[in-house]
């Protein structure tokens, strides 16, 4: 199967322009990374609604808070690692506590940022943001899903964190496939176990299904873009119907998507689980492919985890 590849950040940039044309309230904030986050298309088209704040993420977040209080729908565009780290107190105590209508775009999420190394690879942002009351957390898997998540977030009233990546990734979803916040969907049916994917490692999951099929294993693949609120129904059904779960995310395994799934599984239908993700380490420099291999995020790693969890199931 051949697939188009496109960066999820392009989905962010294109969605902003689309939203900007339709809604005067949309404003975008840049923090000296405007081209890199792809907010640049919006900035060029709607300069009067683009606010550059310079290298000052804490100020960016609360200027966005103020803009939302003036009736705007602000999108803060910067790297995931800076926005959820440097500006956490602003996100927590100003934006989430007062339930303000601020949209936070975390660009360059995950280890696939590559050569820049650990300082720029956000691997904790999902754990941080999903622990905050009032926050919605979405990690789309490809270009179209990112675009839809951003468009959805503009219509939702309340804080929302959407994380996307730097590198082109295979386009798996369709322009017209539905997007419902908080709802996952089955990509392929299976009976022996379920692979639950969150984010841009979906192609690796699809390849893992082929590896497992050739070993006679029938795996269900579910894509779940929303980490919070989590889709309890699809997770519970996967646990009950297939009896074993592997979660896949480009993020630390402690506190992230896998943890969110486990919180549901242990209460609703305890079954064996395995967690594909970063195993409590900082990232390093390399190409995305090299890093996926070095950090255990390949199709082979997913297939191996699936076989391992099946042994625990038996």
């Amino acid at each position, binding site marked *: 199967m051949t697939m188009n590849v496109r960066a999820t950040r392009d989905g962010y940039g294109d969605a902003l322009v689309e939203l900007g044309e339709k809604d005067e309230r949309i404003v975008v904030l840049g923090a000296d990374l405007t081209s890199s986050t792809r907010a640049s298309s919006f900035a060029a088209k709607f300069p009067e609604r683009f606010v550059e704040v310079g290298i000052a993420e804490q100020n960016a*977040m609360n200027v966005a808070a103020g803009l939302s209080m003036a009736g705007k729908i602000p999108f803060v565009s910067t790297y995931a690692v800076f926005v959820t780290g440097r500006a956490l107190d602003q996100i927590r105590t100003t934006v989430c506590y007062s339930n303000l209508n601020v949209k936070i775009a975390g660009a360059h999420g995950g280890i696939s940022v590559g050569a820049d190394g650990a300082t720029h690879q956000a691997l904790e942002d999902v754990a941080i943001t999903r622990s905050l009351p009032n926050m919605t957390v979405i990690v789309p898997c490809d270009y179209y899903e990112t675009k839809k998540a951003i468009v959805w977030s503009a219509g939702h009233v309340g804080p929302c964190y959407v994380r996307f990546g730097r590198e082109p990734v295979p386009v798996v979803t369709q322009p017209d496939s539905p997007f419902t916040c908080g709802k996952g969907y089955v990509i392929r049916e299976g009976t022996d176990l379920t692979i639950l994917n969150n984010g841009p490692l979906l192609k690796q999951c699809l390849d893992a299904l082929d590896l497992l099929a050739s070993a006679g294993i029938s795996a269900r693949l579910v894509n779940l873009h929303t980490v919070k609120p989590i889709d309890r129904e699809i997770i519970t059904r996967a646990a009950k119907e297939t009896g074993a779960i592997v979660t896949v995310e480009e993020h630390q395994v402690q506190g992230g998507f896998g943890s969110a799934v486990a919180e549901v599984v242990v209460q609703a239908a305890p079954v064996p689980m395995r967690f594909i993700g970063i195993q409590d380490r900082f990232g390093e420099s390399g190409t995305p492919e090299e890093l996926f291999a070095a950090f255990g995020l390949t199709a082979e790693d997913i297939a191996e985890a699936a076989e391992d969890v099946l042994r625990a199931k038996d």
Partner: protein
Amino acid sequence: MDSSKLKELEALAHRIRCHIIELLVEAKSGHPGGSLSGVEYGVALYFHALRHDPHRPHWEGRDRVIWSRGHVGPVIFSLLAESGYITMEELLTFRKLGSRLQGHPTTKCPGIEVGTGSLGQGLSVAAGLAIGFRMDGKGNRVYCLMGDGETQEGAVWEAIMCAGHYRLDNLCAIVDYNNLQIDGWVEEVMGLAPYADKWKAFRWNVLEVDGHDLEQLARAYETAAQVKGRPTVILAQTIKGKGVSFMENVAGWHGRAPNAEEGRQALVELGCETEGCLIRGMP
């Protein structure tokens, strides 16, 4: 300002000092020092400069007040009660379970635009509001009430830089410069001098006033509203704990409530036996 208006504001300032003590005694915790030093800048704002309608707290045409120094709940809620946003009786629920008057203010309380309490966050919010109003060509003004120690937070200087850069003349910051913070004298803990020069260097218009002089404060708010092309900061020189002899200039009264006996002493000193000054009566 005519003399009858001035008398009215002085009476308000007096009543608010009494409320501060009374509700702190009732709550058994809270922050007297900065509440007492900030009485006059609050009174001059809410009862002279501010365009607002306490009976329509969400009225679109209102000016916005951001209490960046959220710990001074006693003065904030007393101002809101005297303005008519909340009742006097509700003041006595301050810091109690289920109250709209949380230890640090939240949007549950009418008249509070945004929750604050983690210092150094309000000026950025105020700048965002000012940018938003300007985008829409609206005349609403934005006021940000700050403390001196608070401006040790680095993010405050990001906000100062931003407001100066964008020439936000619809924004007015007011610093209660009482010279004290929890650990001691501001200049000894982490010196801010030369303070006015710092704001000026960031392209702000600076007005220095006696922060207990209602006429000076009222004039400063009027001047700030006339200045074009620059945001204005009013540096209000004050005395922490102002009005209560044993609290004045004592860092220890930053965040400790008077007990019943201390409260009674404070209220007697303030002359609060007068009819109408107290919500419940002497402790």
